[in-house]
């Protein structure tokens, strides 16, 4: 008996200590640790996809910023973050404002991670190294472009050092602007001219980004020149009817768009699920003025960007909805970053600003013709500039442009008070998110004025 027990006892102890390792050091099945993420050539594509994944989140928030801070959309739901944007009682605690900020810096982190680590990863071919570096700089540049025009001079994060970036002051708008330009220029030429699919970056995407960059900086010459390079490359074609832009992913004119598939659709995400916000929950619906505007003859076919459903016609709900973003089962989930239509409008505006009204009319008419809207024949320069502002509203509705356009042209202070009496000039920028000021000592006391 005793012998038996001794055996049992030893057995118990052996069992315990043999499984010691197993007990104390189980391996995670769904995570990779920092040190092995990017240390050999085959890791590079994975991290590059991770960068696109982070970058993708910027776009839905940009649509909210561009169209909802302006006069395109109104509030029709229950979430306080959207009520604030809708009624123009925007506070720094707003979740949409924190979401876009976080998406920008998540993208910046991975881009910086690639830029820091990639040079030391063995076995990566030089061309591949250059291309991935260019992707990182291009996407980082665009992230900062959105940051600059949404929040003003933001902290300029250029490393992955946590300690450094937890306590980092705001840079000046000029510093951010030159960072964007140097990132774009560094990327230009190192990417494929046209990507395998417009879901990825390309040289022409960089040119389109530069065209927009120069437009915002009122550098009309360069804006026209870059837009021309994109337009005359003949790599992109306007689709025959406008509704293709509304109803299809990757239309023929798409230069760069962020892509979703059925497995990674944002669904009911309260910040990123555009279809859910516009159609499912109907938190956000088109404003009356945009409905009238899109229904006008000048808008033509671009009326297809919105839809009417009488079943929704209750209370304050007008029954109208944004049609550009479908459910995951539909073929229009992507959010466009750059497309040819915008390049025509950039060139038209640059030409008009330089006094080339005829050239501007030609460009606008390309889009009017496609939209089966009446063509322009003649115009003064000032009229033309106003016409282009309207045209951008028709053509680029719900693609996140309107607010940025009104602010960069200085027209917000004239247009917005007509839309809502709550408008104030502070709303030409979003506030720095409250949580950033709370957690980054260098930002204390540096909120945008008026918040």
């Amino acid at each position: 008996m005793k012998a038996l027990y001794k055996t049992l006892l030893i057995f118990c102890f052996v069992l315990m200590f043999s499984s010691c390792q197993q007990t104390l050091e189980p391996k995670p099945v769904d995570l990779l640790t920092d040190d092995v993420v990017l240390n050999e050539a085959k890791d590079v594509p994975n991290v590059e996809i991770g960068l696109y994944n982070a970058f993708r989140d910027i776009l839905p928030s940009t649509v909210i910023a561009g169209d909802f801070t302006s006069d395109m959309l109104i509030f029709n739901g229950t979430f306080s973050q959207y009520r604030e944007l809708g009624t123009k009682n925007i506070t720094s605690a707003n979740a949409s404002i924190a979401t876009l900020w976080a998406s920008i810096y998540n993208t910046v982190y991975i881009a910086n991670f690639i830029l820091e680590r990639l040079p030391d990863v063995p076995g990566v071919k030089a061309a591949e190294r250059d291309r991935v570096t260019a992707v990182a700089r291009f996407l980082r540049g665009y992230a900062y472009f959105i940051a600059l025009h949404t929040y003003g001079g933001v902290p300029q994060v250029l490393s992955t050092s946590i300690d450094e970036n937890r306590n980092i002051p705001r840079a000046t708008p000029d510093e951010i602007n030159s960072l964007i330009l140097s990132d774009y220029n560094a990327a230009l030429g190192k990417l494929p001219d046209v990507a395998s699919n417009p879901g990825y970056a390309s040289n022409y995407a960089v040119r389109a980004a530069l065209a927009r960059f120069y437009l915002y900086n009122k550098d009309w010459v360069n804006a026209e020149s870059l837009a021309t390079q994109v337009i005359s490359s003949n790599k992109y074609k306007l689709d025959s009817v406008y509704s293709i832009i509304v109803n299809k992913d990757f239309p023929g004119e798409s230069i760069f768009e962020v892509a979703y598939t059925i497995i990674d659709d944002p669904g009911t995400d309260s910040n990123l699920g555009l279809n859910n916000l516009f159609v499912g929950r109907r938190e956000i619906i088109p404003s009356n003025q945009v409905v009238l505007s899109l229904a006008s003859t000048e808008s033509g076919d671009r009326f297809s960007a919105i839809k009417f459903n009488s079943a929704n016609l209750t209370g304050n709900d007008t029954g109208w909805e944004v049609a550009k973003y479908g459910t995951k089962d539909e073929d229009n989930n992507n959010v466009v970053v750059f497309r040819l239509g915008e390049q025509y409008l950039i060139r038209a505006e640059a030409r008009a600003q330089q006094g080339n009204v005829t050239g501007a009319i030609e460009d606008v008419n390309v889009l009017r013709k496609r939209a089966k809207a009446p063509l322009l024949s003649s115009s003064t320069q000032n009229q033309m500039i106003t016409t282009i502002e309207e045209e951008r509203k028709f053509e680029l509705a719900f693609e996140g442009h309107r607010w940025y356009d009104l602010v960069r042209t200085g027209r917000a202070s004239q247009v917005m008070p007509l839309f809502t009496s709550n408008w104030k000039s502070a709303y030409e920028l979003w506030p720095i998110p409250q949580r950033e000021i709370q957690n980054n000592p260098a930002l204390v006391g540096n909120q945008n004025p008026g918040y």
Partner: protein
Amino acid sequence: MRRVLLISFLLSSFFLSAQDRLISGRVTSVSDPNGLPGVNVVVKGTSKGVITDLEGRFALEATSGSVLVFSFIGYKTQEVLISTQSTLALQLEEEPKELSEVVVVGYSSVERREITGSIASVKADKFREISLNGIDQALQGQAPGVQVVQSSGTPGGGISVRIRGNTSISASNRPLFIVDGVPVETGSLSLRDFGGQDDNALSLVNPNDIESIQILKDASAKAMYGSRGANGVVLIRTKKGNKALTRINIDVQRGIIDPVKKLKLLGSTELLQLQREAMTNAGHDPDKAGLTPGITDAVNTNWLDAIFRRGIMQQYQLSASGGDENTTYYLSGGYRDEEGIQLNNRFQRYSMSLNVDRKFSPKLTVGNNLTLAYSINHRVKGDNFLDGVYSGAIKSLPYNVPYDENGNIVGPSSPLYAAFPNFNPVGQALLPRFLASTVKVLGNLNATYKFNEDFSLRSQAGIDYNDVTEDQYESSQTAIGGYLSSVGGQGYGIFSTSKSVNFILNSVLSFKKKITDHDISALAGVEMIQRPTIYGTVTGRLFPSDDFTYITSAGIVDQGSSGRVKSGLLSGFAEGKYSYKDKYLFSLAMRADGSSRFGPGNRFGYFPAVSGAWRISEENFFKSEVIEDLKLKASVGFTGNERIGDFKFLGAWASVPYNGTTGVAPSTIANPNLKWETTRELNVGVDISLFNGRIQSTVEAYLNKTSDLLFNRPYASTTGFSSVLDNIGDIQNKGLEFGITSVNLDGAVKWTTEVNLSKNINKILFLADSVPIYAGYSAEGTSATNIVQQGQPLGTFIGLNFLGVDPATGNAIYEDRNKDGKISNDDQMIIGHALPKLTGGVTNRFVYMNFDLNVFFQFSVGNDVLNLTKASLVNSGSDLTSNQSVDALRRWQKPGDITDVPRYIEGNTFNHYHSNRLIEDGSYLRLKNLGVGYTLPSKWSDKVMLNRLRVYASATNILTFTKYSGADPEVSTLDGSTTAQGIDFFTLPQVKTVSIGLNATLK
């Protein structure tokens, strides 16, 4: 040599038996004059013995000159020398019960008088006849230092148990529950969020199989649980058989269930008038919006009446127990069926239990405990879900109808469907299938080997296996399945399964010796715990019709996931106890834990504890007729908390998709310095027993400081991350506990009173960066509903200071605290505290003849409740899509009106800013249980061949005294949350249950 010994042994036993003769007799006691069954009668120095039968009779063979030892738990052991007598009548003397009661602590057991730490006991008879869903519910109001809040009235739902306050912000605050030596899963098992209300793993443990519960509260009592002990330990022992004849027990209980209170909401006409007024005030034309008197309010649906029902509760249990000298067993089977008060909500549990102990030799005992349980939970969505049932019923406009003229449920395909956010809550209750079926296997196998009188070794292997399978379908006539095309659109099915297992293996070597006046005991052990979890889920959409509800018929199956996580604990522990003359007691203990949840540098934690007690009443100078026992005790020690989730110390990247390809993106920052939360605990107390045990009281005070609090330290997003899990703070809990049991009358009427009171003061001593952390829900005009801030307790509410309604304009007036001329989140302040100042319970029990009456009150004082339901029900017109409370009738309507409800203006958010308008005093006194019973006199029960027959009636939650205006002050959404507790956000109120029961013991 061995052979010689054997022969002599055989000879001697032969020789002895030759002189044996039969001794018979009867054992009685003062309270059992008709015989005391189950008494051990052993011939001293041999293994020969018998047990008395039901009438207390025994018979065995013994020789003259031998000594018979009579022993029985709760009685003083008595020895009788056999001379010439052949019959024997013996009356055993009862020991003062409380003092000699054996209490299991950790890996050993002690008698109550030897305890040097803080331990509260709850015996099964205190909750046996109360309708309870799970064992955690049984603790409510029963022991000082234990605060139990049932999060809602959902059967099988979440229950928050806190022992001596909240010790942690983000790691779990739930105590460690151990059933028969096996740590069991607590909290939620389900993979799907149901809107604040979770399911509850502990509802699988049948309270009727519980013998006793010990609650370990201070460092010395918890020392053997080291890194898992900071939140207290609840030790549960299931019933065992005793060495007596077989007893068969039948329990039947049936009852009805109703909500404790229904909110009063506006009817159609009143609401229409209010909405028209709100639109007019905003300069809008109500006629254009279709708010037409006589048409809009032609329908008046009371949605709460539509979704509520009277539930039926029924419970049946059959058990058998018994044993002989070498084997004891307990076997039971039970069934409980509790219908929720919401349509379609139901919880059913089938359970079975088998506990067997077998003595194979005087040295080796082998035993097992096994509980099998299966539950079927028909769940409904709740709380902050827009498509929840109770929340939907509160919010839905009375203008809408649940059924069309043909009696069909109104769904998205019907023109009568009101749509977002007024989903038909009746349809939301009846149409979806949310079945969670859970299997629990809880058991252990143990062996104890006694090397000799002093040394013994006990090894145990145990498992707690929980397997939940969720079978869900939301039809095309529901919000998710039909209305929200971005989710389901045409039916939406989820099938998921999750297995959570706790596996434990330990060996403990114990030593116990008494050398004259010195009692020494010691133990040392090793233990391994492994906790694997594996889960999988799959989602299907686009079903051909609602006749097909399983994913095999889904048009698209595009969402799914599976994974596994494993964590482990490897530990060694030792404990030594010494007492001199039962007067000076001293104990020293230590546990070392290695946990997989921490980085290599911080993997091991050491948790020592020391305690002592002085039983003054044993001193010669202290002789008192009144004071039977007086003990002073003190302890100090360390415990830990490692329940933070797995792999948190790693800097990790997870898989992410883009454009049909998969890559990796960062998910967490590495924090190799991550370590345990450590709680330093100090405890002092006095135990006193007066008048031969008629009054027993314990007073204790404690001071606990938890350091290295684990929390997601918020990072500026410029780092690329929003937070890192870090050890960032210190928190303190100090408190006083008082418990008293008194036999007030002990004559024809027996009246006993038990009172327990607990006061705990929680305070955050330090937070890194001194940055307040916002928690809870987002709120209009403020940073959030809750704040975690240095100097404040957990569960602190923030908001604006609402000063009233301007009689001139009808607008809300808030305090402009920073005097900047505008109201913003810079003006927010602390507006309330969710933690109560005092909690307790009072039980009075009366027995007269065969009748008994039990009155159990439970209360909470000084806790604030954030009535977020009111934010929606008295919303000042910020949105017109939800119904309003009758309180809205008090709204400001014309200049000069003095009221506390601001003017209604459509779309206006200012009047609706988050403020102390929503904070209410949540103090309450609740008649938790009122029970009356009648036990048939034995002469009657004998006639129907029963040993005992008892009938009783029991009513729970029937009376509540509170100033709280919502449905129930006790509820809490965000079940189990520490930073955001005490929030009523469309939370289903508690239920009152009135039941009758029958308990019979067969002969």
